[in-house]
């Protein structure tokens, strides 16, 4: 359950889940919506996969993500969106939320 809270604590990951509520999307389409580097986005996807909140599938050349939320997790996401849940203590999050990484030239 802690992995779920960790995944939902980041606004970028919450927005990814919000976008996936509309239906499955490719990793490229999802990443295009954010001003972040590919490694950072991959790290966000990995956290969501680890928490079992999304499922990924390779279709052709692209990786498609689809939502895998239970009703409780769906309600937690709504709660986190409404109250802006963030992690304030404990181990530091490996993926920064103010994703302004510069890609390698």
């Amino acid at each position, binding site marked *: 359950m802690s992995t779920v809270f960790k995944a939902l604590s980041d606004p970028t990951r919450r927005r990814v889940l919000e976008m996936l*509520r*509309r*239906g*499955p999307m490719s990793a490229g389409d999802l990443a295009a919506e954010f001003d972040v580097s590919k490694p950072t986005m991959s790290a966000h996807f990995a956290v969501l996969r680890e928490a*079992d909140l999304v*499922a990924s*599938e390779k*279709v052709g050349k692209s990786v*498609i993500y*689809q*939502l*895998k*939320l*239970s*009703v*409780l*997790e*769906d309600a937690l996401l709504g709660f986190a969106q409404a109250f802006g849940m963030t992690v304030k203590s404990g181990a530091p999050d490996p993926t920064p939320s103010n994703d302004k990484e510069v890609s390698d030239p």
Partner: protein
Amino acid sequence: MSALLLSTYPLKAATIGVLALIVANWMSDPHNALIWSIALITAGVGIFVGMTLGRCAGTRGKTIRASLFGAALIIAASLALVLIKQLGLASAGITERANGVMMGVVLIITGNYLPKTVRSLTAQRCDPARRQMVERLSGWALVLAGFVSAAASAFAPVTMAEPLSIGAGLSALLVIIILHFWLMRTARDTQTPS
């Protein structure tokens, strides 16, 4: 802990419990020997089939064992409530309320996990976005029906509890049927060449 739960031991323990409860019910209610003997035979066949399916290796086997364990727990709880009533340890009203709460909890657990069952995108015949929405709404409908059913069984007057529980369950079922008809219809429309 989860490894132990997904092994065959809890399932074996639960099935032994079910058999013991049927025998105990039979002994406390010998007038209905025919019903209990049929229950015993049905449970025996179910256990044989369940044990055969539960031997599957990998994730499929774990899923089957977990589902069978859940089913065995529900049956065992129902049999325990009947036995409690037979032995006069609790009044009929209390056991009926407990049964209603248990059914509500079953609806909540089933509904909660329904949207988590994802299918391969390449294997889906209908629009994956619509399927996701239908499963999400179906899950919410079952969870809400479960809460209403459990709350009605626990707190509503006895005369109101059963109609409220049945009404909540049937409403959820109706919502799920309508959503799935809509999904099937849209799937057929997209498959039909223009």
